[in-house]
């Protein structure tokens, strides 16, 4: 894990303006956030609903332009072989700069895939849109990526309607990593899964991260889930970055009240005779 930053946010703010005439309203969705995502690390982004974490992710990837502050992305130079031959820096990125370099996994599994398409076709779409071929530079195809996430080849011909939530999220992860992304963003991706399924998915993510040296931004509202996989955690409240630091340190010595609230909100199981430890 190198310390080279992939995404850098410097005093970034985002203001939403709505209404006209006398009814103008301004919402500060992101309030002066400075944050760095380093190559190879997993950054957790935690906060309640409306804290601005999803919005921040979209600013990071250039989907929304920040109203003030600097956004900087360093993307791999994709040569024909797909090996990173270097990095180019983009300031104030726009969607087309970032196209094909960011993997996104969303919260609602069933909206992530076109219900008319098979999984194979959906994954191949990602590959085709990025590299104009159904296989990536290493010759891996849709079924290979499905297998990487624990879905055997027979799943390729299935449609999302016939799958369970956990299976679909795995497929979504497969599609996201198929394009060999510079950064993988999981936006509440595990939040709609059952707890036991979440645990499986976290294990999968940890393994993939190891194998593929992924850089991950993991967004969630449950500190326990986020903390299970993140190296560093950033806490957001009402658009502001409240606290950020290595996971263990945050748990042991939270600096802000809000973080303390979040920690308290995590249900802890007491150790009982022959029972389950927290």
């Amino acid at each position: 894990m190198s310390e080279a930053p992939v995404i850098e946010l410097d005093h970034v703010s985002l203001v939403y303006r709505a209404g006209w005439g006398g009814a103008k309203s301004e919402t500060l969705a992101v309030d002066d956030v400075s944050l760095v995502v380093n190559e190879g690390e997993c950054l957790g982004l935690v906060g309640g609903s409306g804290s601005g974490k999803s919005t921040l992710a979209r600013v990071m990837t250039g989907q929304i332009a920040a109203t003030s502050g600097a956004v900087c992305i360093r993307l791999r130079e994709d040569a024909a072989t797909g090996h990173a031959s270097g990095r180019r820096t983009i300031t104030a990125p726009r969607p087309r700069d970032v196209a094909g370099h960011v993997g996104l996994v969303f919260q609602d599994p069933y909206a992530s895939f076109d219900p008319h398409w098979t999984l194979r076709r959906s994954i191949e779409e990602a590959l085709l849109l990025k590299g104009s071929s159904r296989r990536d530079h290493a010759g891996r195809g849709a079924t290979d990526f499905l297998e990487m996430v624990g879905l055997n080849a027979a799943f390729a011909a299935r449609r999302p309607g016939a799958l369970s939530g956990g299976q679909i999220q795995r497929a979504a992860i497969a599609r996201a990593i198929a394009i060999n992304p510079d950064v993988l963003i999981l936006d509440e991706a595990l939040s709609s899964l059952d707890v036991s399924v979440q645990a499986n998915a976290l294990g999968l993510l940890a393994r993939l991260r190891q194998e593929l040296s992924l850089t991950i931004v993991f967004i969630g509202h449950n500190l326990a889930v986020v903390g299970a996989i993140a190296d560093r955690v950033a806490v957001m409240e009402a658009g502001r970055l409240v606290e950020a630091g290595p996971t263990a340190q945050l748990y042991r010595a939270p600096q802000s009240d809000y973080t303390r609230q979040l920690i308290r909100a995590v249900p802890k199981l007491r150790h009982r005779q022959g029972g389950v430890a927290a």
Partner: protein
Amino acid sequence: MTWDVAVRCAGRRRKLPTGPALGLAAISLIIAGALLAPLLTPHSPNLPLPDGMTPDGMPKPPSLAHWFGTDNLGRSMVARVLYGARATLLVGVVSNTIAVVVGTLVGGIGGMLEGRAEAAVMRFVDLMLAFPALILAIAIASIIGPSLWNAALIIALSNWTWIARVVYTKTLSIRERNFITAARLLGASRWYLFSRHLLMHLAPIMLVWETLGIATTVQMSAALSFLGVGVQPPTPSWGNIIHDNQNYFTVAPWTVLIPGVFILVLSLSFNIVGEYVHEKMEALESRERRPETAEDARERFGEIEHAG
């Protein structure tokens, strides 16, 4: 609606309720009649029959010899109605198809654009919606010259706006879905998104309107023909048969009522079938919003995932 669900439904061969079944039967019979007209009647629709008129020059009422009687020029009503079905059906189907295609393109593409372009397109659609359709159609038809194809075009022009509105609303709901965002993030063009993804989602609506719309276009076609600005005589269409015979109505009501009933039956049938299709599509759609499947249950209980 997903295709595999639809196929499963079709294959299940559930019985059609009586309304749609009758409607479908009526439509099929009329289409068959139109296509097989030369086989079904020995008479030509345009030639007066030697025994077509009564001694005082009036149309003959329905009898065993002439099932639908004769019209004001002594022509066989059976022949006129059967051949007339062709023109009426043709205008109805062609104009409606054009309306559906144009409406889908405008509504779908308008929905995929964003910002000012999208607002401009929908403002235009609203403008077209506000026009008094029928009277404008009549005006245009009378000026640029009445003919079958002009009538079809004009009726299409009056009808596409409703469809554009409906398609637009549906597009808005689909466009926010994550798989569209994901594809867009990969650099997919709007046309790609529209043609590869959106169209399949719009297919059910298009089908519904293709059926329902014909009920309206058939009527408009008849109205235009009745006013003399649609299909021109001597080519028969149900509307112009009535036009030709309206002055004989009191002495020969069958000349007006029989084509009138046919128009009613055709329009009604398409209405009933269209509403049935509409209901089915809505039911399939709400099923798409996922109740728990067996897969979900299995997963929760930790069974190993194998497909099939």
